[in-house]
């Protein structure tokens, strides 16, 4: 009985220790990425290539889901608002929920699933096939050549994607609210403009998306770089990327929102 208990405690302890160890390694990894950023930013062609793969290739899934999210918001919102006779406020509801929350958060979740997994798998496989070691042999830092361009590409792409998400979502909401339901076109936009503040809502949403971009990209890169160089290791690292990124995004969202809402 006592033996089993000690074994359990040992298991918990070693797992905790492993987590903390990885956290420290991730911090060091982040530091190196920052240090080597200058080197990779001097070759913008690398970053542009990665923006294409992480940003432009994610565009379709982001835009399509944004359109549907906006349409659903308008439908659901109308259903409830109409009970209180304020269906004109549908524009405000759609715009505020998209710009403040859904734009950055849903984009980050989709980004982690679409681009984050690709980054992890790519870097994990590079490591498994010893391409990273080969670079080190040639005195090319893999962090400068492989990691830093992907990091900056993710940090650049994420806010752009989130902004496009919000805009497309609002257009989707407009499509449902005005032609389909018959809310007044002028009331839709004017109520929205009266209640959405540029600094309070739009800029704060933008800041959120930047933070999520850093978090998602960094997690994906570190998981790939730290993956055991086997097929199983890469597959596990890819799963962990999605899980940790999603949790990190939702947790960070709470922290950022509580900061932004406090006066």
């Amino acid at each position, binding site marked *: 009985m006592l033996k089993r208990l000690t074994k359990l405690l040992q298991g918990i302890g070693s797992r905790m220790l492993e987590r903390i160890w990885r956290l420290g390694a991730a911090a060091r990894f982040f530091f190196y990425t920052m240090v080597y950023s200058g080197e990779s930013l001097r070759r913008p062609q690398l970053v*542009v290539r990665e923006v294409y793969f992480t940003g432009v290739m994610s565009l379709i899934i982001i835009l399509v889901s944004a359109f549907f999210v906006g349409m659903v918001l308008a439908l659901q919102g109308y259903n409830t608002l109409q009970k209180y006779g304020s269906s004109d406020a549908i524009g405000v509801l759609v715009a505020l929920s998209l710009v403040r929350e859904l734009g950055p958060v849903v984009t980050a979740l989709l980004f982690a699933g679409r681009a984050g997994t690709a980054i992890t798998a790519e870097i994990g496989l590079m490591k498994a096939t010893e391409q990273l070691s080969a670079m080190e042999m040639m005195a090319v830092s893999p962090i400068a050549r492989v990691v830093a361009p992907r990091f900056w590409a993710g940090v650049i792409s994420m806010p752009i994607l989130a*902004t496009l998400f*919000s*805009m497309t979502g609002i257009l989707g909401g407009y499509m449902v609210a005005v032609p389909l339901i018959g809310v007044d076109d002028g009331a839709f936009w004017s109520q929205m*403009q009266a209640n959405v503040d540029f600094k309070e809502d*739009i800029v704060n949403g933008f800041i959120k998306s930047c933070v999520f971009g850093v978090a998602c990209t960094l997690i994906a890169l570190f998981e790939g770089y730290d993956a055991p160089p086997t097929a199983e290791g890469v597959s596990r690292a890819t799963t962990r990327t999605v899980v940790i990124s999603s949790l990190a995004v939702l947790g960070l969202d709470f922290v950022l929102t509580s900061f932004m809402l406090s006066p």
Partner: protein
Amino acid sequence: MERTTIDLWVGIFAAAGLAAMMGLAMKVGNLTTSGIGETYAVTAAFENIGGLKARAPVKSAGVVVGRVDGIQFDTKTYEAIVTIKIDKRYEFPKDTFASIYTSGLLGEQYVGLDAGGDSVPLKNNDKIAHTQDAVVLEKMISQFLYNKASETGDTKSGDKKQVGEK
């Protein structure tokens, strides 16, 4: 430098992002409506501002002429000091009346300006002397109940003098 199709796509991507940001700022946000341009500030003291908030509109005859810039509490008079920024294009006489109204039954609150007859206009950092507080629903209801009670009391005693009074 060699140009590739990837560059083109990334360029389109970045341009679309910028366009979306502009769209959000102009069409969705209040960047266009809040840019009043040159303004002058006046203050007004209220005993009760209700739910008035900073950035609430200031209207005269229903037209937005300015915005509430800030709200402070004066510890000497125990009144709320509301700072209002009014567009330079609009001049108001010195004896303008400032009141706090509610748009709709439960809508947001705004400051309404009713122009007086004075020939001297309000200047920067002036204070509006005549104000009317926000209507607090609970006060109104209790007053109504009080009046009702006194009314029935009065009819019993036969004295109908106080019925018309508040």
